[in-house]
């Protein structure tokens, strides 16, 4: 009896987690007639008409390319800066360590609206609205706390002896960091990179403010603003949504251990 209840709970959790999105994927494979039919069509005809239309009429691939570029560049830059700062905060003797870590934590909790106006003005002044760097810079700023915290936690777990040995062998500080510590902290780098990429790939608020020209917009902005002539183009929205989500689902399936570790690394300490 108890066991049955447990299994039912597991079943309900899995179904509720997956079904809504599977329904949307299902919608993306329907004809427009099937999408609006009542009762709903549960087994779609499997047409890719919506995908073709999303690419031809709505420039889907353009949005994908912009998203790949912005999220990729954000990940690379944030990781590079986080490795440097995370190492310094975890392993070097510095003053105000707590204050620096605390201020990063604070930044990670900023509501975007509290900085939106000024960031927009600064970018406007630099002529960087509607440019890739104009979006990448805020993304780097907002993902740095996450990257630094994860990497600092990974660096602090490495044994001191390795670092000492490298020193004795005559490695300078920078060499020790790059040759010895970074390879050892590779799992941390990878974990942080996944979480940063997902953040940048999904971000909508700043993308909406900064990218007002269609040619530079990222996928979430595209998906939010798809407009049909008379009704909403649900097939195309569902198709673009599937395209935006499938890479993330693959990442989750392949790297769930790293993601779980990264998300809970702050909680355990």
């Amino acid at each position, binding site marked *: 009896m108890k066991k049955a209840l*447990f299994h039912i*709970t*597991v079943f309900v*959790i899995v179904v*509720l*987690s*997956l079904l*809504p*999105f599977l329904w949307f994927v299902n*919608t993306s494979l329907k004809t427009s007639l099937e999408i609006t039919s*009542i*009762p*709903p069509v549960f087994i779609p005809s499997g047409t890719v008409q919506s995908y073709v239309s999303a690419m031809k009429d709505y420039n889907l691939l353009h949005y994908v390319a912009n998203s790949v570029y912005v999220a990729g560049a954000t990940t690379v830059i944030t990781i590079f800066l986080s490795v*440097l700062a995370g190492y310094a905060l975890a392993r*070097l*003797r*510095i003053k105000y360590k707590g204050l620096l870590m605390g*201020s990063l934590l*604070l*930044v990670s909790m*900023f*509501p*975007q*609206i*509290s900085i*939106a*106006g*000024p960031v*927009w*003005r600064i970018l406007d002044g630099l002529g960087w609205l509607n440019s890739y760097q104009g979006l990448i810079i*805020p993304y*780097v700023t907002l993902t*740095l706390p996450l990257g*630094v915290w994860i990497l600092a936690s990974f660096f602090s777990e490495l044994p001191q002896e390795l670092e000492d040995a490298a020193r004795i062998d005559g490695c300078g500080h920078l060499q020790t*960091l790059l040759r010895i510590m970074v390879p050892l902290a590779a799992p941390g780098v990878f974990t942080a990179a996944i979480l940063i990429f*997902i953040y940048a790939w*999904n971000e*909508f*608020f700043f993308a*909406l*403010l900064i990218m007002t020209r269609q040619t530079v917009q990222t*996928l*979430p902005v595209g*998906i*939010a603003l798809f407009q049909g002539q008379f009704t909403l183009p649900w097939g195309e*929205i569902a198709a673009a949504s599937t395209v*935006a*989500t499938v890479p*993330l*689902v693959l*990442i*989750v*399936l392949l790297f769930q251990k790293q*993601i*779980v570790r990264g*998300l*809970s690394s*702050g*909680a*355990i300490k």
Partner: protein
Amino acid sequence: MKLSLIARERIFASSLLVPCFLFVVFFALYPVSYSFFLSLHKIILGLPSLGQPFVGLDNYRDLFHDQVARHSLSNTLLFVFLSTFFELLFGLIIALVINRQFRGRGLVRAAILVPWAIPTVVSSQMWRFIFNDKYGLVNFLFYGSHTSLYAAWLANPLTAFAAIVIADVWKTSSFAALIILAGLQLIPDELYEAAEMDGASEWQQFTQITLPLIKPALLIALLFRTMDAFRVFDLVFVMTQGGPGDSTNVLQFYGYKKIFAEGLMGYGSTISVLVFFITFIIALFYLKLIGTSLFQEKQ
């Protein structure tokens, strides 16, 4: 002159920290204070000839009398309360389930991560479709093929608000679950074994052992979820645009509309400052609670 080892280490450490904190200072800390500066001025984006005259606290006085702003504030607080409550509740249930050993556990964990990974804009469109008034799944589940009974869920103040809460809870309960799970895994099995020998029921074990020991994890999940719920924007933008009649308008969306849709950079910035202070105070309050609860545990 030869520098001491410690001095050299300090210089090296600072040079590693400078690039990171340049970003943080220029694009996060400076903008927050700049928001405060803007909020003391009258700045209208569409009227550059106006300049930016200093108006003191006028914008704040207007904000105080702004009915929509008050409504957005109470909506935001209600949203934060409801969504974090259900997220922690479901997060706890999910975490307790995954914490057991059973076949297919890894797959279940992957399944609950899917809503977390989906872009919020995508899940917003998805729920908007599911709540659709003409061919949405919710209408079909309630009323079958009787289309005359179909309700426009997102056009009714009460159900529109509920829809946004549901969409948020669906997407982020798994995040709370992972944090709580990390706390659960720190509890040694011996505690439960000892309790069993003493004849404690399962419910007693839960309330006497599990709950007190995962308190820090619960508080951390609560902190992160509260801060995140305060920023709710994507769901509102896609699903309701704050409507019907401001019933789902929230502070971040209202601020966005004032600053960017209406171009009221000065007045809109008062909302930015207000949101910043509210979240700052709540964050400090939680961090203090977490600090004391971790401290008690160590004792």
